[in-house]
């Protein structure tokens, strides 16, 4: 079968693409002499970082000639306390990356081959607007969907809603945080927020369930974990891999993968039956304790031993350590928690454990966040939404509070019989190919689209599938929405351009607004320049654009001294019952377990190993893989293999191998072997985000293996649609024939 849409490896780029951009200068050259480096008379402009979602505020320093030199954290910012992480420090590489997208591209057919032709913005907008109008006429506005990540989400969401579709999905929900958000929502009535409201700074005991703080470089949390280490806090890490955090831990529990719920239930058992729990707190604030007590009656450490391979002594000692620290204890909710399809229930067990120990609302546990209200500019009402994503497959994922990206993808495939079809995608700042598991499904969906638009700064794989590619300038070259995030104190941060956009790239706000004009929706973008809107917003809260340009960050005082619950405070929790719901009647009424239950998961067959993936501190998802500064720190992933396994296979350190998963999928590229005691013998581990297949990203093309490519078995969470990705097994291929390697 011929594809309607071929993946364009952008070899079809004409040489003109480079010429368009003009003056690209390698900054390092300008400062070849070390004497020049001794000068510190640089100018600076404020920004907040876009390399990950933590959004640290900082300063972009520029040389006298206006070229960007370095990025340093803003001392006043609670997200970073003046210290950027390696990715933020290396953010300069996003700007200087010579492989950036440089001009709009439109897919055309030339001599039987699909290629991209360079286009003007006007041509690109005309093309998109015409297709969007047709889709609305034939199928209805809801047949357009937006997949989005990052600051630009605001503008493209406005555009979609103005057009008439509410199908806006962030993969950060169903591929990442979703189960955690719902678990906390249905227990405490509130999510764990971003940045997380974990009071790590003042905790006496931090429990990490597969969460690898320090390798996931969520800046504020890494900093606070370090503070907690300084103050002598006990760290307990549960991980089949000896993570960096495990190396800092008093207790490392090398658990058998997929058995976390058994451990959590046993800890709950220990804490209840040894009467370690906070009786006053539970009595005053919690609902369903008696049912919980009965439910966990038989889950003794001896029961868990056979399941988790953790000794009863380890389980008892760690339960005791948590109790000793309570209420200054955090069983961390995690962040990327889409593992086994029962993830909402696992994180529910985490939430319940926190409730029993009385850590929610307590110093050293979870604090109450405060957020600065910033008014939105009044816009005309959006047209009424005819159909939402929940109408696609009625009854599915009834506890999803966010839009489930994989449901929109499934609805793009006619064979799945969605209630209405999805025919057009906007994909903004998210490389769906390396984000959504089961790539074949994504490719199939793409083949059925009438329009796909990709907005990105880099020629990520997703852009190779688009009909139109819109090159956004980097965060260092644009204004964006104010950063308004919850923290201990309410605060806002400004991003402003440090320099003009390179090449023919444009800010997301401009792109959305220009497109809105073509669709007759410009009334939803009343300000020609985003800075005018920012100034209007800032003036509503007693600040101004001029002030923010000088300070970058503005921190406000809390309205009340209520960071933690006061002694004996009457708290009404935003749940149905007004209490912390240990027992979930809502789950029960919908036919789900009201209390978390351990259900065994499949073990790897002989000769296969569970594929576990995680983060490296110097990279974000797959998006930084070509960043020259960060590639310099890590330019490929490796597969971690236990020495026992390596001996069995006769493989050596640094040898390159291929991986094949349980469905016969062989990794497109080979990966370097790292033989290490840091991983269990039943699992292999790799850092996510490598193995890029897009040749135009020269530094990362073909370097390492994409875990996403090998995740074809997806364990979907029936509560909220999260895509569990830890149920895949791989075997090792040490030799491939030439033919196989080429195919």
């Amino acid at each position, binding site marked *: 079968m011929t594809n309607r849409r071929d993946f364009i490896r952008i070899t079809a780029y004409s040489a003109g693409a480079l010429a368009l951009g003009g003056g690209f200068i390698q900054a390092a050259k300008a400062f070849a002499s070390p004497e020049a480096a001794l000068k510190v008379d640089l100018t600076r402009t404020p920004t907040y970082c876009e390399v990950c979602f933590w959004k640290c505020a900082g300063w972009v320093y520029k040389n006298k000639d206006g070229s960007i030199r370095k990025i340093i954290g803003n001392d006043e910012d609670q997200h970073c306390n003046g210290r950027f992480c390696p990715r933020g420090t290396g953010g300069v590489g996003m700007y200087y990356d010579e492989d950036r997208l440089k001009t709009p591209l439109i897919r055309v057919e030339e001599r039987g081959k699909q290629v991209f032709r360079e286009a003007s913005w006007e041509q690109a907008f005309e093309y998109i607007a015409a297709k969007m109008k047709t889709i609305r006429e034939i199928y209805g506005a809801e047949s357009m969907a937006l997949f989005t990540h990052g600051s630009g989400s605001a503008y493209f969401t406005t555009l979609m809603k103005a057009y008439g579709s509410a199908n806006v999905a962030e993969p950060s929900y169903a591929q990442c945080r979703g189960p955690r958000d719902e678990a906390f929502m249905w227990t405490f009535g509130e999510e764990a927020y971003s940045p997380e409201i974990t009071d790590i700074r003042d905790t006496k005991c931090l429990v990490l369930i597969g969460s690898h703080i320090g390798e996931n470089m969520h800046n504020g949390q890494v900093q606070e974990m*370090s503070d907690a280490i300084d103050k002598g806090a006990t760290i307990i890490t549960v991980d089949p891999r000896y993570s960096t955090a495990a190396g800092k831990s008093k207790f490392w529990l090398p658990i058998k993968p997929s058995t976390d719920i058994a451990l959590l239930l046993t800890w709950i058992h220990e804490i209840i039956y040894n009467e370690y729990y906070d009786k006053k707190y539970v009595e005053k604030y919690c609902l369903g304790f008696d049912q919980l007590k009965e439910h966990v009656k038989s889950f003794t450490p001896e029961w868990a031993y056979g399941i988790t391979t953790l000794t009863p002594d380890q389980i008892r000692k760690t339960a005791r350590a948590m109790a000793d620290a309570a209420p200054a204890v955090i069983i961390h909710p995690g962040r990327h928690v889409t593992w086994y399809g029962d993830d909402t229930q696992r994180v529910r067990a985490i939430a319940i454990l926190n409730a029993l120990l009385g850590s929610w609302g307590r110093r050293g546990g979870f604090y109450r966040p405060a957020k600065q209200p910033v008014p939105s500019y009044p816009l005309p009402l959006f047209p009424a939404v005819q159909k939402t994503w929940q109408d696609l497959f009625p009854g599915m994922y009834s506890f999803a509070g966010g839009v489930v990206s994989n449901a929109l993808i499934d609805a793009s495939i006619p064979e799945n019989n969605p209630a209405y079809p999805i025919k057009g995608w906007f994909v903004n700042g998210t490389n769906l190919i390396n984000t959504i598991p089961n790539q074949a499904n994504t490719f199939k969906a793409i083949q059925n689209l009438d329009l796909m638009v990709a907005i990105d700064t880099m020629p990520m794989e997703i852009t190779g599938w688009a009909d139109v590619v819109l090159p956004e300038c980097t965060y260092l070259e644009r204004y964006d929405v104010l950063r308004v995030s919850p923290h201990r104190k309410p605060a806002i941060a400004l991003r402003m351009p440090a320099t003009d956009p390179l090449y023919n790239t444009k800010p997301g706000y401009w792109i959305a607004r220009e497109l809105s004009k073509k669709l007759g929706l410009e009334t939803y973008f009343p300000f020609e320049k985003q800075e005018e809107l920012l100034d209007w917003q800032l003036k509503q809260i007693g600040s101004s654009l001029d002030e923010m340009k000088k300070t970058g960050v503005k921190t406000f005082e809390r309205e009340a001294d209520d960071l933690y619950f006061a002694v004996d405070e009457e708290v009404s929790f935003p749940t149905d019952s007004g209490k912390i719901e240990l027992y979930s009647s809502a789950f029960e009424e919908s036919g789900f377990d009201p209390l978390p239950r351990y259900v065994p998961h499949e073990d790897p067959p002989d000769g296969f190993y569970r594929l576990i993936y995680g983060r490296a501190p110097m990279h974000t998802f797959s998006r930084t893989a070509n960043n020259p500064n960060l590639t310099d720190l890590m330019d490929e992933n490796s597969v971690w293999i*236990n020495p026992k396994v390596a001996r069995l296979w006769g493989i050596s350190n640094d040898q390159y191998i291929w991986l094949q998963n349980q469905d016969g999928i062989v990794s497109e590229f080979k990966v370097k072997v790292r033989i290490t005691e840091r991983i269990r013998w039943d699992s292999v581990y790799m850092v996510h985000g490598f193995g890029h297949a897009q040749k135009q990203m020269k530094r990362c093309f073909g370097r390492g293996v994409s875990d996403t490519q090998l995740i074809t078995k997806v364990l979907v969470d029936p509560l909220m649609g999260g895509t569990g990705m830890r149920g895949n097994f791989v075997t090792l291929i040490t030799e491939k024939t030439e033919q196989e390697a080429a195919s």
Partner: protein
Amino acid sequence: MRYAMAVDTKKCVGCSDCVVACQTENNVPIGYCRDWVVEVMDGTYPILEMEIRSERCNHCGNAPCVRCCPTGASHFTDGGIVLVKPSKCIGCGACIASCPYDARYPHPDGYVDKCTFCLHRIRNGLKPACAAVCPTKCIYFGDLDDPNSEVSVVLKKRKSKTLIPEAGTVPQLYFLI
């Protein structure tokens, strides 16, 4: 005055922020570095220990690189900091061979380069870039002759070690253990 640095191995997570911050601060060309991260593992699964260290020039009190430099390009300056003067350096590489810590590299512009403890910053009252950026605050810097400097205080409070002390180089980069 005696400048020294102490790195807390109990807090370092090996993120390499020190490396990239040094590169952007000092215009170290991509592909080279003045500081780097070392991970040392010990034990068999699941009884394991790990030490992570951010390493760089030790600014030795008895520096073999200074002794062996034929042109005087490698020299001592403020507070015992070891520097290379590029205009005097002929790129012979004797210093690279003599350094037990492998802290020097040949800069593509034809001279040998290494950590300066960010002399340009400390002269302006700032910390070295690596210490200023470190998210775990595991890098302490200051004057050992000042008993109240953060490096003096932390070295008094905590157990520490230096690398290859048997080489007799009198290293001034300490690791808190």
